[in-house]
Each structure stands twice: as structure tokens, then as C-alpha cells.
């Protein structure tokens, strides 16, 4: 296995990269310095804490704790996706349902194929990978729904006035939003190996695994991400569009 060269001293030197970002923010008056410092501070604290937590969970290898950790990841991913929903009439548990179903179904299928064992060192990182991609897709779906409901308000009103049920009135917007949510994953899959050597594959190569074996894992990850983003976006979209209407099937005014 390769010798990993990142230690505390190298991390301190690498902090110079953060200074580059801060310098640009300062020179261009972007007003991002406070945000950059806060994000770095949060990343260091969160990653250090999770490092110790994962070390403990991997060591005791308990099913209940593993499930709890996976739920914690899904809960947080859902919270972040929920916060990205600009609709004031939003609901957290609908977002949680989208994240929970997309993550567990994808994880379940991968485990059924035998590619993944139910041990914390495998299930937890993969849950994080799946949930974070679903989170991004769900967030994109929400934002697109909001902008399209604003831009196409008149069209929806006209469809409702003709007697269309809300699903038919919103179906074009819904399809477009789901498509937008899935597009980055599809684009990324198209350029994989040509533009990017993605995280899973890079990690395995770093750890000394033969690149050809690493590719197999990356292909598996690509399948997983396609499944989770499509499931997440479709569930979130179908639950979220209804919240732009009231019980009388009238289009709500957005503030």
C-alpha cells in the first residue's frame, strides 16, 4: 500500500490554499472572508469529530450503532436539502422521505448484489456518498421548481382555469425540475475518466489498489449515484409540487 503523506504539518502548509481564496475575496471585495474562515473551521471540527466517531463505530462493529449513524447522515442530508427549498410552504418530512427512500433503496440493491457487506466501514461511507448526491439532486429539484412556478405562473393558472387537475397543470414543470436535478450526475458520468477521476476511484488508487480494480468500484458508484439522484429527485419533486397549491387546487402566491 502507498505511504499516505498527509500529516498535521502538511495540512498547516496546505492552509496557504485557503489564503489564496481569502486574498482573492479581499482584493475583489467579494465579502467572503468571514464565510471562508467559518466554512474551514466547521469542516475541520466536523471532520475531526467524525473521524473519531467513525474510528469508534468501526472498532465496536455494532449493527444498531451503524444504522443510527446512517440515519444521522440521512437526517442531516435531508435538513440541508430542505433548507435549499425556497418555497415557504415546505415540509421537512417530505424531504426526509425522499432522502431516506433514495438512500436505502440504492444501498439495499448494492447489498443484494453482494458488492457491499453490512459492516460499518463499508456501509457508513457509502451511505454518506449516496445521501450527499441525493441531497444535491433534491436541492436542485426544489430550486428549479420554485423558479419555474414563478416564471410559468400564468400558464399554470390557465391550465387550472381550463379544469386541469394540479398534476396535469404542473407536469411540465415537474418533469423539467427532475431532469435538471439529474443532469449533473448524467453529465458527470459522461465525462468520467476523461475529465475527472472521481473520489472513490482516486481514494482506492491512493490506497494502492490497482487502477483497473478501482475502476470497477467507480462504475458501481456511478450506477449508485444515477439511482439515488433519480429516486431522490422524483420523490422530492412529486411531493413538493403539491405545496404550490392549496386544498382548493388554487395556485398559491409566492412571497
Amino acid at each position, binding site marked *: 500500500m502507498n505511504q499516505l503523506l498527509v500529516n498535521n504539518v502538511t495540512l498547516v502548509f496546505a492552509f496557504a490554499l485557503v489564503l489564496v481564496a481569502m486574498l482573492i475575496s479581499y482584493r475583489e471585495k467579494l465579502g467572503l472572508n468571514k464565510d471562508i474562515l467559518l466554512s474551514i473551521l466547521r469542516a475541520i471540527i466536523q471532520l475531526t469529530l467524525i473521524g473519531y466517531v467513525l474510528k469508534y463505530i468501526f472498532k465496536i462493529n455494532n449493527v444498531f450503532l451503524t444504522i443510527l449513524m446512517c440515519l444521522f447522515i440521512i437526517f442531516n442530508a435531508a435538513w440541508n436539502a430542505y433548507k435549499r427549498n425556497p418555497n415557504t410552504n415546505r415540509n421537512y418530512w417530505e424531504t426526509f422521505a425522499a432522502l431516506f427512500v433514495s438512500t436505502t433503496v440504492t444501498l439495499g440493491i448494492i447489498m443484494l448484489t453482494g458488492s457491499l457487506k453490512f459492516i460499518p466501514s463499508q456501509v457508513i461511507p457509502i451511505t454518506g456518498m449516496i445521501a450527499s448526491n441525493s441531497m444535491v439532486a433534491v436541492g436542485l429539484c426544489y430550486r428549479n421548481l420554485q423558479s419555474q412556478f414563478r416564471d410559468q405562473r*400564468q400558464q399554470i393558472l390557465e*391550465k387550472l*382555469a*381550463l*379544469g386541469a*387537475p394540479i398534476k*396535469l397543470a404542473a407536469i*411540465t414543470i415537474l418533469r423539467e425540475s427532475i431532469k435538471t436535478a439529474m443532469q449533473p450526475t448524467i453529465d458527470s458520468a459522461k465525462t468520467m475518466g476523461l475529465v475527472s477521476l472521481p473520489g472513490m476511484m482516486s481514494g482506492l488508487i491512493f490506497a494502492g489498489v490497482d487502477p483497473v480494480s478501482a475502476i470497477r468500484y467507480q462504475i458501481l458508484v456511478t450506477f449508485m449515484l444515477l439511482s439515488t439522484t433519480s429516486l431522490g429527485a422524483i420523490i422530492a419533486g412529486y411531493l413538493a409540487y403539491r405545496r404550490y397549491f392549496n386544498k*382548493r387546487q*388554487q395556485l398559491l402566491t409566492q412571497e
Partner: protein
Amino acid sequence: MGIIELQNVSYADGDQTIIHHVDLSVSAGDSLTISGPSGCGKSTLLKLIASLISPTSGTISFNGKNQTAYDYPTYRQQVSYCFQQPTLFDNSVRDNLKLPFQIRSVPFDEARIGALLELVDLPLTFLDKKVIDLSGGEKQRIALIRNLVFPPQVLLLDEVTVGLDTRSKTIVQALIKNVQEQTTTVIQVTHDETEIAAATHLIEMRQGALQK
């Protein structure tokens, strides 16, 4: 009892009251014209009747039954609202005229559409015309047909002739007359002097209230 009955209907948007205690009864087959200055609440009144918005107080009934007791899409298929300066959606005229069939889950009837297009002086080949290539008058005619593919019991027209050239206006007015003659109840809002002069039943609206 009228086909449409409004009892003490008020509507407020935030702090602003737009419709004040309106009582109105429209008999089946009647043709009612509502006129009044801009911003007096005419369009809001039509949207209330169309159930696109709900009254803050008071009741609206259709065929003797409270509006809230209906399945809303079914109600709107019978009490159909045509917007002032309507938007056509998707790509082609066909996409727009298909929607009423999709709503009712019935196959597209090209012969029926052909007859309706003929009524507004447009050929059947117009079906495949792109929406972006249509003039304002053509858009308004297509929008009106969209409301009439399955004739509603009540047709609500919100200044549908505003901004149209003389030819389109004449065609649209002839279509409205044709609809009125076929027992459809028509409630139209207008500023147009000739339409006001030709009205059989005219009510004026001022500051959200109907003038007796």
C-alpha cells in the same frame, strides 16, 4: 335561482379589500356584461367565480350547490375562465388544443377542432403552427377555442378583445355571440364601448362593489 349566485361575497388581499359584499344572480343562458374603471375588481370577481381564488367571506353557488362542494377541476370545466391576453403553452397550437382532451382523458378529435378553427376563420393546418409565430389576435382566438372545445355551462370572459386588431375583434365578438346563442351563460368584463352598448344585461362595478 340563477346558475351562478353570489351572496355577500368579499375578497381581500392582505389589508386591501378588493371586492365588497357583492350579491349577484345570473340566470342560465343569460349574458351579463360587467364594466367599470381599471382596478375596480372586475377581473378579481371573475376569478372568484372561476374558483381560481376563494372569497374571504360570503358564498358562491353554481347550479344551487356551493362552489366548495364541487371537485374543483370538474367545476372549472363547467365554469370556464378565459384570460385577458392569454398565454399559449408548449410549442404548437395542437399542444394547446389537446389539453382539454387530456384533461377529460378522451382522444383528440381533429374534426371538432377543425370546425372550431373555422368558426374563428383559421384553417386546420394552423394546428401545427408554432405558438411563437402567432399574432396577438390569433393567440386570443386559439385561447378562446381552448375554452370551448367542450362547451362549458358558464363562460367567463376577461376583456378578451382588448388590444386586438379590428378583424380579430370582429371574429372574437362573432364567436362570443355564437356561444351566447347556444345556451351557454356568458359573463364578460369589458371596457369596449361597442360591447357595452350591445350588452343585453349590463352591471357597472366601482371600487369593488356592483352598482345597482
